[in-house]
């Protein structure tokens, strides 16, 4: 059966959209390999790793590695909290409890609330308490208001499709509550937990809007980048952009490979229960 013309028209549209999506990033990746004499725009003035080397020199403006460390640390803490808190809440939501509807609405509201309002509120809260804002306190909270709704909604999707018969079987064989969770539930939903971890880390590592008013004096990397681009005069900023994008891609790639490996392992070692005719 041949494809209708609308197929080709839309395939072209999607192709153009993908170019539109990746084109700009590709541009700065290419420009980050500018020669030592090269500028912020094309043409390329030779090809070199000069600007990547410059990243490791002391900078006249900006604190690249300090902000990088903070972003990385914050991303990891947010990732762990997001996985743990969403998983626990996901378990809770499988049963009825008072306030569950309110909690769900809070989560959804937190997801769609304009970031500048959340950021302002957290800033005002710390100002009133007289506590210095910092990445490990106010900004951590701000990031969690952004990552936890994603985590919770993913957990809903997971537990909606989860077959409780597995847990009943474990309990029938004498497993305690903890053993059931540890040896039955967690292994079964592991790919989704990896997904939540991916959301938790990358959304935090790249977050800027909710961070801006809540981070205090020491910036995270996205904020440092935003500040640097205003008076960028050399392709150092592109080298930094290439590096941080590469890190994001490594995290995404690792998560995807982890999910694929778990699936493959299951296909190989999984039981044949339910497969018989």
């Amino acid at each position, binding site marked *: 059966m041949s494809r209708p013309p609308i197929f080709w028209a839309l395939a072209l549209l999607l192709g153009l959209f993908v170019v539109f999506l990746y084109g*700009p990033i590709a541009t*700065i990746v290419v420009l980050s390999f500018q020669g030592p004499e090269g500028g912020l725009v094309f043409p390329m003035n030779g090809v070199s790793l000069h600007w990547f080397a410059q990243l490791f020199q002391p900078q006249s403006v900006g604190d690249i590695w300090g902000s990088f460390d903070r972003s990385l640390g914050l991303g990891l803490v947010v990732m762990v909290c997001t996985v743990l808190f969403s998983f626990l809440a996901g378990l*809770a939501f499988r049963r009825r409890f008072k306030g569950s509807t309110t909690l769900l609405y*809070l989560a959804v509201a*937190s997801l*769609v609330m304009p970031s500048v309002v959340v950021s*302002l509120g957290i800033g*005002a809260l710390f100002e009133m308490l007289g506590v210095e804002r910092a990445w490990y306190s106010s900004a951590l909270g701000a990031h969690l208001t952004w990552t936890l709704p994603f985590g919770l909604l993913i957990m809903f999707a997971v537990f909606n499709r989860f077959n409780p018969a597995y847990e009943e079987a474990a309990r029938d064989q004498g497993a305690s509550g903890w053993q059931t969770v540890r040896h039955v539930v967690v292994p079964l939903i592991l790919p989704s937990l990896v997904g939540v971890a991916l959301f938790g880390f990358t959304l935090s590592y790249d977050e800027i809007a909710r961070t801006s008013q809540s981070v205090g004096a020491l910036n995270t990397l996205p904020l440092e980048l935003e500040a640097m681009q205003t008076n960028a005069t050399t392709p150092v900023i592109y080298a930094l952009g290439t590096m941080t994008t590469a890190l*994001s891609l490594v995290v995404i790639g690792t998560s995807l490979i982890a999910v694929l490996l778990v699936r493959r392992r299951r296909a190989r070692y999984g039981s044949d229960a339910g497969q018989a005719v």
Partner: protein
Amino acid sequence: MQPLMNRLSKLSPYLEALPLSAVFLAFFAVPIVLVVVVSFFDYETYQLLIPAFTLENYREVFSEPVTYQTYLITIEFCALTWAITAMLGFLIAYFLAFQVRSKTTQMVLLLACSIPFWTSIVIRMIAWIPLLGRNGLVNRLLIEIGLVNAPQEWLLYSGFAVVLGYVHLYTLTMIVPIFNSMVRIDRSLIEAAVDAGAGTWQVITTVILPLSKTGIAIGSIFVIAMVMGDFVTVDVLGGGQVASVGKQIATQLSYLQFPPAAANAMVLLVAVIVMIALLMRAVDIRKEL
């Protein structure tokens, strides 16, 4: 022992939901209430927050002509971005859900569209600068092919650049929920429409479009919330030339003027809630959750 265990098991959902609830309470509910409270506060240069009940901040917001200008611009950005992302999102989701036949190809293409979502927003914005700038690639190309004879200034640091940035960042937030609605559509409905003599275009407008309304609404809520409150894209791609409501609030905050910023934020919040409520009236989202 048994009654104790029973009581513990009744308590367990509360314990399990505790960390999540605590975070939302401390870092979302309380701060939002504070924004409301602070919007009535007084302030001075050296004292940021003076407890009071004054409507002065609101009076200021509504009496400044600049407020109406920024709201007008912000709503214009929002409407343009919404129209473009909804159109693109619908067409791409339709292509993925109904025209691509293999599940693997579907997933690979959807993943290709999603990967940038997990990378840095700031980098994705900065990346437009060497393309759209005065000496950027686009201007060079336009001059090369003789379409224009001088670099076009409106390409960067303009409303155009801001909307382009939004479309670049937020089209995915339309594609995913619309795609999600579309894969749930019963295929026999489409067969029935085709059997009844509907062409491709009629199938799209009379069957698929009404049945993907929920997805469009969810995507729209995200786009509206992000564009209405945005200040980062406006800052990077609008330069100093463009002011939005979010940018105005961020500027006030950079001078630590909490009360006027809070009043401004409350007005913004009401505007966003009204827009979302209107959407919800048109489409019942809860049905799908």
